[in-house]
């Protein structure tokens, strides 16, 4: 509504000037201004410390150096250090995903065009210009950032050298110097110029009152941004691969990057393909579907075989600590989330009955969630200490078991169960016992939180459904299975997303519970990043790890959303 009135179809300029201050139009205008003013402080902070850091991380991850804020440029060096040649594979796949998104947006736009018979083609000009200006803006940021960061050092040097100006004056002076660099000025004006052209073209071409022009414009902007991202990423990865080959040629070595990229990509494509066949099989009649499923299965095997054969080789040069960190994160989520959910769902269904002292139980269950993690972990450190006389060890010895190493134990639990006589391969040993203690802490913390949310979800289920079910003779379990679970699925979806992201965020208790004897088997991805930054002061490398973590989290969120859109039942 406000959009229409502000950019709306005014007739005379004088009239508009009056109307801005009075009447319905004026009220809307004032509302827009007030809304922006209300949003400004929160968004200034969230943008500076929550959104801009993403671009900043990407920039920082291309630099290397110890304890250097602006290190030396190293291309994808940090990434290859972290995950080996897989970095190149990842680069190409991100490029492909961008291109796929562009195609997707184009198809969606094309469908709307066909449906309404519109002719929005001229809107491509402003759309692409705006998209280009976004790209140019990123270019400007990456050119400007190192220079701007250098200002801090210059000011410190100047004040230590006895400069008389205040830091504000110095800042102005040094900023002026940065501004005088021709490349930065050019980049700035180019960005502004293209953006202004885009906006003017938008204004010119959106004068025909097509009701869907906003939709088309945003479609063109999306296509442009994705195309640009995809083309840039593939070009950048390509040059990086060529540089790696050139360097290897000089050293007289041979590389297999291309072979790895192709084989691994082929493997992934085959996996995707087999999944698509499998899905389409369910719409066919039985013989056809069996055949299709057989085909899907064999394609799956070939794809998996390619991946198993090539992935370890491509990843071999990566950082062992990082892989261990990722594996620990996976163990941590698989080990904690199902238990959390099962226990808290049980507690919630119990609490939902007509129970005395409901409030008290809720308070007790919730207590771990509000406890400062460092304080609670301090007592876990004593409870689960590896000493023979530690409380937990005393309990299990009194039950007739051998005392365990707990937080000091680096061996995997399956290895401990199997005993020393049977030597399990490394991949089968499972999470270390010390990681299990970390998992127990996580479960203990989050049960109360989940229970409260499950309780709210249960409260939202209309009681008539249960009445109808019990009239139809449905038992308690049937009621739970066919009414409670489906109607709880939105809550479950929210909690799963929250819990999965929570495992990537987990830091405090692990930092307190980690021991040197556990040999890093408790350190999840966050802790590896923290060590790279704080202990090793390799900011560029830590940023690269952070970007990889971000890619993983984003991938998981997309998958979670996809699954949820099919499985979640919004009654």
């Amino acid at each position: 509504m406000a959009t229409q009135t502000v950019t709306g179809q005014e007739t005379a300029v004088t009239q508009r000037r009056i109307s801005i201050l009075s009447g319905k139009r004026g009220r809307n205008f004032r509302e827009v201004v007030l809304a922006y003013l209300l949003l400004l402080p929160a968004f200034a902070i969230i943008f500076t410390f929550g959104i801009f850091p993403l671009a900043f991380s990407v920039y920082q991850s291309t630099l290397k150096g110890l304890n250097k804020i602006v290190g030396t440029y190293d291309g994808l060096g940090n990434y290859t250090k972290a995950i080996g040649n897989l970095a190149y594979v990842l680069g190409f796949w991100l490029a492909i995903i961008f291109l796929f998104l562009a195609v997707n947006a184009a198809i969606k736009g094309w469908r709307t065009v066909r449906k309404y018979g519109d002719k929005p083609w001229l809107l491509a000009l402003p759309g692409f210009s705006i998209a280009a200006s976004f790209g140019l803006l990123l270019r400007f940021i990456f050119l400007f950032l190192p220079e701007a960061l250098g200002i801090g050092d210059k000011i410190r040097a100047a004040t230590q050298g006895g400069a008389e100006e205040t830091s504000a004056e110095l800042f102005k002076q040094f900023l002026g110097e940065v501004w005088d660099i021709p490349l930065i000025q050019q980049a700035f004006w180019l960005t502004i110029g293209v953006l202004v052209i885009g906006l003017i073209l938008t204004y010119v071409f959106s004068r025909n009152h097509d009701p869907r022009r906003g939709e088309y414009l945003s479609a063109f902007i999306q296509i442009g941004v994705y195309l640009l991202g995809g083309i840039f990423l593939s070009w950048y990865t390509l040059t990086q691969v060529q540089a790696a080959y050139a360097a290897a040629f000089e050293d007289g070595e041979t590389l297999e990057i291309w072979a790895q990229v192709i084989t691994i990509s082929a493997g992934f494509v085959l996996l995707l393909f087999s999944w698509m066949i499998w899905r389409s099989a369910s719409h066919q009649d039985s013989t056809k579907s069996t055949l299709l499923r057989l085909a899907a299965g064999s394609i799956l095997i070939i794809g998996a075989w390619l991946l198993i054969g090539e992935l370890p080789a491509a990843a071999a040069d990566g950082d062992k600590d990082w892989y261990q960190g990722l594996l620990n994160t996976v163990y941590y989520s698989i080990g904690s989330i199902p238990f959390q959910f099962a226990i808290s769902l049980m507690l919630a269904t119990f609490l939902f009955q007509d129970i005395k002292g409901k409030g008290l139980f809720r308070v007790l269950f919730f207590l771990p969630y509000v406890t400062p993690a460092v304080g609670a972990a301090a007592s876990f450190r004593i409870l689960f200490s590896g000493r023979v006389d530690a409380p937990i060890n005393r309990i299990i010895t009194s039950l007739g078991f051998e005392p365990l190493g707990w937080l000091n134990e680096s061996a995997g639990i399956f290895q401990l169960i199997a005993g020393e006589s049977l030597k399990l391969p490394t991949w089968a040993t499972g999470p270390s016992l010390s990681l299990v203690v970390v998992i127990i802490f996580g479960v203990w913390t989050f049960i109360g939180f989940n229970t409260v949310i499950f309780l709210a979800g249960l409260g939202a289920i209309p009681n008539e459904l249960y009445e109808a079910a019990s009239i139809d003779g449905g038992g308690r379990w049937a009621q739970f299975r066919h009414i409670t679970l489906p109607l709880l699925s939105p809550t479950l979806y929210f909690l799963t997303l929250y819990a999965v992201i929570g495992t990537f965020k987990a830091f405090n208790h692990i930092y307190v519970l980690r021991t040197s004897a556990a040999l890093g088997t408790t350190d999840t991805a966050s802790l590896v990043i923290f060590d790279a930054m704080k202990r090793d002061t390799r900011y560029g490398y830590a940023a690269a790890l952070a970007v990889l973590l971000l890619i993983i989290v984003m991938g998981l969120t997309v998958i979670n959303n996809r699954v949820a859109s099919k499985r979640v039942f919004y009654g």
Partner: protein
Amino acid sequence: MANIPVTNSVSEKRPHPKTRHVDIGRIVIYIILIIGGLISITPFLFSISVSLMNLTEATGRAILPASPQWGNYVEAWEEANFGLYFWNSIKIALISVTGQVIFCIGAAYAFARMQFPGKDFLFTLLLSTLILPEAVTWVPNFITIVWLDRITPLQWINNWPALTIPFMASAFSILLLRQFFQQIPGELWDSAQIDGAGHMRYLIQIVIPLSRAALVTVILFSFIGSWNSLAWPILVTQTPDWRPISYGLLTFLDEAGSLAHLRMAGAVITILPLIIVYFFTQKEFTEGIATSGLKG
């Protein structure tokens, strides 16, 4: 909204054919709930018990102290500089919570009740920051803070700005408040408009007083967050001057080494304020969480 009294009466209305047999089931339910409750508080009871032991009891792993040694708390308090850390944490929490409440109320109200261009885009942007792990922002934010420290007259590192300003707005709080604000009936806004109230007056005089539970939740959440924060303070404080209590306790845990009773006394000192705050606000708090959690 999760309204417990309502669900109470609801489950009473549902007669179960096997009411006689349920008694055993109920006992099992109570036993499980009690065990769950005990497990939830065991670490606290353990900390309190150990914190009141003398050295021989603590190293000998006794279960209960023979006579409570309240002096342990004094010793831990003085030895670890807990007074300073405690005061630091309170200051940090007050500054960031105040900022967060003011800024987030404004933003949440704008999203809940106002129309402006770019609303959907900004809201999606806000939502997308929710999935961001803190680890992703450490490096860039640290560099930004160091930079701000150098270019502005304000000292950022080792001082309150680095510890509070980045946390003065959170997407989570904005979403939670927006959720609450949207549930306030539209008729109230209509009648406020008829009485000649603008957005600001409506927000301050009607919306805020009606959103007590949500505000308590936001305040408690940001208070817990600030009291709990560990990674970021480790990165931006090199001296104890502004070191918050979690970090203080962590350094004390290493210093106190094998003195378990002092370590536990320190842990109890750290935990207790939050527990007390929670007990006073738990009703609004659980209600607020339940409302926000239900709809994501």
